[in-house]
């Protein structure tokens, strides 16, 4: 169990670093896919199998493919040679490293820091319960409906923004 976690964490962090540092943006997108796959494995380790599968479906099947499409559509301007990062990247790296160490140190004072998980009780993580809570007026009905409106708005907005306006049209 620990071994699987450590391997997955290594792959996830390694490919995340590659995502932000790869010179070719296309390679960065492919490394991002590996990171997302690692997160899906982590979800499976946490016994949230539905979200592991949805992670693969939504992030890899939709989002990363969308990103690859966008990379290809804007390819002609990509200069893969030369620095792909801001010129003071080392300053950002040092500051963020300090912040992450401080953050983890602060968190380690929290009493639940080294909680070990109990065995998952029967029925916990049941999808039917989750679904009922999503459409329960006392539960998450409002966020659920709002998120569906958000999706429709994003759909319409994305199409309107990205579509090429022909000459003669407004």
């Amino acid at each position, binding site marked *: 169990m620990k071994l699987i976690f450590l391997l997955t964490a290594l792959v996830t962090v390694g490919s995340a670093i590659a995502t932000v540092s790869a010179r070719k943006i296309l390679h960065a997108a*492919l490394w991002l896919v590996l990171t997302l796959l690692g997160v899906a494995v982590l979800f499976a380790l946490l016994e949230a*199998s*539905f979200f592991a*599968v949805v992670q693969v*479906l939504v992030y*890899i*099947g939709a989002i990363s*493919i969308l990103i690859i*499409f966008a990379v290809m559509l804007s390819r002609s301007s990509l200069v893969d040679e030369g620095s792909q990062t801001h010129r003071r990247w080392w300053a950002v790296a040092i500051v963020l490293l300090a912040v992450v160490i401080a953050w983890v140190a602060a968190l380690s004072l929290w009493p639940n820091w080294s909680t070990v998980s109990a065995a998952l009780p029967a029925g916990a993580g049941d999808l039917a319960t989750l679904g009922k809570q999503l459409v329960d007026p006392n539960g998450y009905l409002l966020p659920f409906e709002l998120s569906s409106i958000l999706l429709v708005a994003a759909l319409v907005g994305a199409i309107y923004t990205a579509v090429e306006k022909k000459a003669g049209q407004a």
Partner: protein
Amino acid sequence: MSFIADPINFIARWLTAVLTGWGASASVTQLILFIISAGLLAMGPLVFTILLIWVERKIGGRFQDRLGPNRLGPWGIFQPIADMLKIFTKEYITPIGADKVPFNLAPILAVAAVLAVWAVIPLASTVYGVNLNVGAVYILAVGALGELGFIMAGLGSNNKYAMLGGFRVVANLISYEVPMVVILLIPIMFSGSLGMNDIASSQTTWNVFLAPLAALIFFITQIAENARAPFDLIEADSELVAGFNVEYSGLKFGFFYVADFLHSATAALVFSTLFLGGWRGPGAETYPVLGFVYLVIKSAIIYFAILHIRFTIPRFRIDQMMNFNWKFLTPLSLVVLVATAVLDKLVPIGQTLLRVGVMWAANLLIWLIADQIVKRVSKRQAVPEVAQPRPLARPPQVKTNDATGGEA
């Protein structure tokens, strides 16, 4: 349980007994059995593909009034094996400037995505890879991995035709995923579970009787997901060179080839599990081996239907394909989903005949309305006439009264 009724589990129990007899602990035995069964489940379909290729070529030949493979062995049955040997010995060619890792990873992903579907399909009441409680979503997710394989093949090849082909196939797959996901909700709704085992075993009445229109839409989307004719314009030989796999050679091309053939059989398997009751049939519960036979028969019929469509219907243009999906299938599947959900709650579960009757009536009504709308719209968007009809050639001595020279 005897050997005849349930051979797989009989062998598994026998192996367990043998291994524990040799002094292996229970967990080690479990692990060995897992490895053996996973290997069988992965290798079985791949070997099965050899037969599939022969079947498809033979049936295709008959459809086109040819003999099909007929030289090697009885009825040419060893032809795919000879092809396989040929493909093994071919040279691998990596184009200059290709992105090596995506280029080499893509064929593996393409095959793995198809094979992974077999893990959750219940082959009989007692024989299945794993009873995943999110099996239906899992099938969609591994389909997404396959898409990634195609796009990696297109991008890694350093060839603009491969890239165009990769974009076309992914645009096709993503678009047709939308009605497929919507329709997939209907069997899930009927069985109240996302697991493929529960979906198969809950179908005392086959879902195709309860949701005929949904089954039809799912069938169409499965053909499109498989990129078979009439949706095969991604490898349209006359327009694109060969699609995303143009730069592949040898066994790497063979991987895509196998993935393509195996995918249509897998689509038939998924369809029979979701809509035709899977392994269900008379006596399948007591004799699981019968369930396997039923599943094979059902899948074979669906597979033949896929082949029939492939060899008889001409290819769509890309705009027709996208219009068909976004302006027809997607709205229709949403309407069917809502109608089925409402009627499912209105008609009590017990009365099977009434349920089937009401569902068929509703589906027929939806179909008629959709048909009328399509007719109206297509009449409004009439194709402009660009030329006069050409007079037919006829020998000079034949006299007809028809001014255009129509057939006498």
